[in-house]
């Protein structure tokens, strides 16, 4: 029995996870090393990877800051009523339930060139939709819950006794946060950040709708993969996919590391 279950599980993992990754790697080198290099060295690939990198950095920084602060407020703040906290708490998860395409559509509907807000920004010389700001907003929306969901349970678990003690002893809010709260939540923040990076790097649906997938302007790595597949340029698609998959595996290792650190503390 035992052998059978282990064998079945290994088979499921192999077919679902391991073989597909190997297949991508093989596909990238279908035309040898030069095919792989050519796929990557195309100017559109470099631009797309640059866009993805830019979005990942901005989104991660913004959502880490706001995510940690919002978790603190939702757990600790006395100026929010209990009911209101519960309501806000259930709203945090909404982006998980929203299909990425719908997330993109929401932003187009609110800030698109034909809307009042969009026209206003357009007059000010800033394009939101079909430009970088819209893509950043879309990714912010999609990745928003990740950090909050990691940090909130820990804050609840450690309780506020130590923080109150620090405050009683005359520490400022700032000192209390860095010396008391931060050490106990930092590995969860790191874990949330890794999840955010992974999601921001891989976001496809929302970005595709908002960006319009314009070559050399708003194309990201994932939307370029999509376009290459549609154009039957499979070797190039595989090369970019392999780079993204390598990034994912690195992130996966980071996740494992953050998880092990989190358990220690």
């Amino acid at each position, binding site marked *: 029995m035992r052998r059978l279950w282990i064998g079945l599980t290994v088979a499921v993992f192999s077919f679902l996870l391991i073989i597909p990754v190997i297949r991508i790697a093989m*596909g990238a080198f279908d035309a040898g090393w030069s095919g792989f290099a050519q796929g990557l060295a195309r100017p559109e690939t470099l631009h797309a990877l640059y866009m993805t990198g830019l979005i990942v950095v901005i989104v991660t920084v913004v959502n880490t800051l706001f995510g940690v602060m919002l978790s603190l407020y939702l757990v600790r703040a006395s100026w929010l009523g209990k009911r209101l906290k519960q309501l806000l708490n259930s709203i945090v998860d909404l982006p998980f339930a929203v299909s990425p395409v719908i997330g993109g559509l929401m932003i187009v509907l609110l800030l698109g060139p034909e809307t009042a807000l969009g026209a206003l920004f357009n007059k000010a010389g800033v394009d939101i939709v079909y430009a970088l700001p819209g893509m950043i907003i879309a990714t912010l929306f999609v990745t928003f819950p990740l950090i909050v969901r990691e940090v909130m349970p820990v804050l609840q678990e450690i309780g506020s006794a130590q923080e109150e003690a620090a405050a009683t002893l005359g520490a400022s809010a700032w000192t209390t946060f860095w010396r008391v709260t931060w050490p106990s939540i930092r590995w969860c923040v790191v874990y949330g950040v890794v999840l955010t990076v992974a999601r921001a790097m*891989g976001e496809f649906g929302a970005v595709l709708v908002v960006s319009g997938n314009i070559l050399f302007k708003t194309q990201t790595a994932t939307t370029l993969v999509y376009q290459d*597949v549609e154009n039957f340029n499979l070797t190039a698609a595989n090369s970019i996919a392999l780079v993204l998959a390598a990034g994912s595996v690195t992130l996966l290792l980071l996740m494992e590391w953050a998880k092990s650190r989190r358990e220690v503390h």
Partner: protein
Amino acid sequence: MSSMLQGRWWSWGFRSTVMLYFIVLIIFPIIGIYGQSFSSGWAAFAENITEPLAWKAVLLTVKLALIATVVNMLIGTMSAWVLIRYRFPGRRLLNSLVDLPFALPTAVAGLMILLLLGPNSPVGELAEKLGFTILFHQPAIVIAMVFVTFPFVIRAVQPLLEEMDASEEEAAYTLGATKATTFWRVILPNMLPGILSGAMLAFSRALAEFGAVVLVAGNIPGKTLIASVYIFGEIESDNAIGATAVSVLLLTFSFLILWTVNYVQMRRKNG
């Protein structure tokens, strides 16, 4: 005194910024899409919602997502069980691989399935011989959904198995229960909450999936056109009202699932 005032101003500033960010980023867009869908009146909304193609797309999505969820409940429960209860070489590696679908861009996942199951691949050829095609048909969509939702059930069941008290199981054996009876009467009921909440999350994610599916589905209306791809098509052809109508339908459905999961989890924590 002045420093106190300053501190107060700071905290006020922080509070309002964070709350404003939250409301503008999350709540506005959602209200916006519901508002937009009814902006041309009930008649237009009803017309778009009763569009047969839209309904077919939504129903097809629900059907395929259900199949994917059931598959995940089975292989997810089995994998969680094996990864927690058995020791074998490679166990740690497999355990860290579980999260791969979360870390991998969905478009890359779609490409993987495209390559593995295409008509030129061994699997594709085998299926062809047996008389059916996978790629661009419903099986490919289900496989894509299973792939992207794979971690949910496993990650929900594992902690329950770890926490489970060994004495219950031992008591069952001591009382003469067979392995099968113990599993059905003692172990499974313990895992069930995790299986269900993981399945709900997997289901709502499968309903929403776009990236992995768009590359492997044939997108034939009524047969392989799922809701998110339908919405994308409507956006591409500039039919914003049609897109919002289906979006509202899908969103409401997903919200209901999400809140049910939250409610069940809260009751379990409190109870």
